[in-house]
């Protein structure tokens, strides 16, 4: 069960100063954020805010300076992420590019791809989304049917992606698509590739899907004979599955997997500061938060060391999702909704509706637990 081992990590030198710097920046910005903006957390899309974050050097922090990065450590980046999420900052316009798309391009992209995309992610000019789920392919992702066929001068893309967060606001998608049939009797995980898709290209139709909160956060994106240039391919043709799954430790272990409801915990603590009867319930939440933070920091340390803690990440995501998902209900148990101060109530109301997504996005609870079970030697 070595895949479930965690080694603690201390914050890096200069952590407190960096934290203070980010906090001061947030203080300048936060007056514009309504409780709903804060409750949206990393699902809040604000391009101006993203540009301001980029100007401070807090996007692509760990990337080489040659591409606009900051050459900082993974643990320093973690500090910025934590501070942003704890405050409920609308980081959605750069979250995916910074967390996944940029690192993928840096690791597997060509020199031309790096030079083209990374500096613009860093400034906030390019916002990325991820094209994985399809109408008939959710947890069984490898059954996806969107395909890119080799044609003269590039690829022709046909198919449909769905549940794409901010597809209508983003500039680029990295889509997992089929580029060749799986070998006879072989795994359907073969023959998939990752493609850079310009969302403004002809043949791309984006249809926002209204969600249960009444907002248009995610989309259905249809590709109808979309022409992709040769260099749309990221990494190796046919190796898309391995490439996509190798990023999962980065995607799943971060503070975005346990801090999504944090602004509500802060508001609740404020409202309940003098209520002695609320102390035990608050204490349990704080203890859980403290433990999750130690676990998430440990995974960041392993990533910094170049390890691939994909199982630990699944485990932290599962525990973290449980925590952030249960929080609104727990706070509702401490104070009647009608008695909540307005900010607390609005955070509560929004989060109550959106928390079911926490254990869906980035891989469902059932998939996470399946990964852990496999590590235990079950299945």
């Amino acid at each position, binding site marked *: *069960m070595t895949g*479930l081992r*965690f*080694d*603690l990590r*201390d*914050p*890096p*030198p*200069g*952590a*407190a100063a960096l*934290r203070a710097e980010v*906090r001061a920046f947030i203080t300048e910005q936060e007056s514009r954020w309504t409780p709903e903006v804060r409750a949206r957390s990393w699902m809040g899309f604000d391009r101006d805010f993203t540009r301001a974050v980029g100007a401070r050097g807090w996007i692509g922090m760990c990337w080489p300076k040659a591409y606009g990065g900051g050459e900082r450590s993974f643990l320093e980046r973690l500090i910025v992420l*934590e*501070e942003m999420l*704890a*405050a409920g900052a609308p980081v959605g316009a750069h979250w995916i590019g910074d967390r996944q798309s940029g690192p993928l391009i840096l690791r597997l992209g060509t020199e031309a791809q790096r030079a083209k995309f990374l500096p613009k992610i860093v400034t906030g000019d390019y916002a990325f989304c991820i094209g994985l789920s399809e109408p008939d392919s959710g947890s069984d992702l490898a059954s996806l049917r969107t395909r890119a066929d080799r044609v003269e001068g590039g690829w022709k893309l046909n198919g449909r992606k769905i549940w794409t967060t901010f597809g209508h606001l983003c500039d680029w998608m990295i889509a997992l698509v089929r580029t060749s049939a799986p070998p006879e009797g072989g795994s359907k995980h073969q023959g998939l590739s990752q493609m850079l898709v310009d969302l403004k290209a002809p043949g791309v139709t984006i249809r926002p899907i209204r969600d249960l909160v009444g907002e248009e956060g995610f989309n259905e994106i249809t590709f109808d004979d979309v022409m992709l240039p040769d260099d749309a391919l990221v990494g190796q043709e046919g190796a898309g599955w391995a490439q996509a799954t190798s990023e999962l430790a980065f995607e799943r272990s971060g503070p975005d997997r346990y801090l999504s409801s*944090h602004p509500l*915990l*802060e508001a609740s*603590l*404020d409202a*309940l*500061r*003098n*209520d*002695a009867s*609320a*102390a*035990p*319930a*608050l*204490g*349990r939440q*704080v*203890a*859980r*938060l*403290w*433990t*999750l*933070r*130690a*676990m998430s920091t440990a995974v960041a340390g392993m990533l910094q060391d170049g390890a691939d803690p994909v199982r*630990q990440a699944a*485990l932290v995501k*599962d*525990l973290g999702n449980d925590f952030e998902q249960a929080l609104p209900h727990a706070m509702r148990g401490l104070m009647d909704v009608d008695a909540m101060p307005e900010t607390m109530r609005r955070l509560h109301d929004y989060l109550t509706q959106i928390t079911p997504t926490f254990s869906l996005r980035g891989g469902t609870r*059932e998939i996470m*637990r*399946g*990964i*852990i*079970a496999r*590590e*235990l*030697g*079950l*299945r």
Partner: protein
Amino acid sequence: MTGMTIAAELAEQVTRALADATDVATLRAVESGAFPAEAWAALDGLGLAAALVAEDHGGAGLGFQDAMPLIEALGRAGAPVPLAEAIAASALLAAAGITPPEGTLTFAAAGARVPCARHALHVALADGATVALYAAGALRIEPGTNIGREPRDTVAVTGAPVAQGTLPNAWGSEAALLLTALIRAAQIAGAMQAALALAVEHANTRKQFGRPIGRFQAIQQQLAVFAAESSAVSVAAAAAARAADQRGLANAAFEIGCAKITAGEAAARGAAIAHQVLAAMGITEEHALHHYTRRLWAWRDEGGSERFWSARIGQAAQQGGALWPFLTSRDEESAA
């Protein structure tokens, strides 16, 4: 890093010694009131009781965090001998300027029940910051047990202490409580690993509907939750121990409390899952599982229950201003 390597080696030594000298029969004997003298001798021979005592006082000079894997290893074997108590008691005595005695040694906060007092040559009692060391003859001992049927004795002082001392500020006036919470959290991590291993083994061998029950997702998902909770306790205990190393035991009360809450909640969840997976077999006296689950339930309550600590942690948070700055201000930066 060297410290962690030593810690892993010590844990390995303890694991081997326990595997050689103890088994389920040992736990049964302990629960019927016997002292596993052979197992104690085997472990005592490793000189581990002084693990936390400074080197210039004859100890190994390890930090709390270094000792956690060792104490987890004890928990994995059901803690048949009170070695964790001896380690904590020796540290407590040394901190109060008292040379830890040879042989069986245990400790408690004054007024609390004392683990294995009836088997100990010496008992350290901490009343606030005052630590007194008593020989067994100076105590009247009324035997009692916890629900793990481990000896938890009520002790009345009838004679003079062998030695007495005062703890420095860094150890504070709640050192016995904090040490108990820390070692029980680490033992819970270990006992959860043992119970999880039993449950996984059972799931992979017990067949129903023509296949091992571990092939069923319903079982897999539950055991995955167990594994996650088990990892959470390990991390929490280690992080609390790290805080005690960095800031002194007294100033790590917040972290130790958080770890004990996490451990207590996880113990309950894990024990319930293990019993669900092992079904009726796990309920039999013959099966090993209950030795672990009953200890898990018992250890939740020693060194402060979830109720006790969550009230204190909640209060600390209520008085600490905004939560996030409060939590992060407790971080210690690593050296460059």
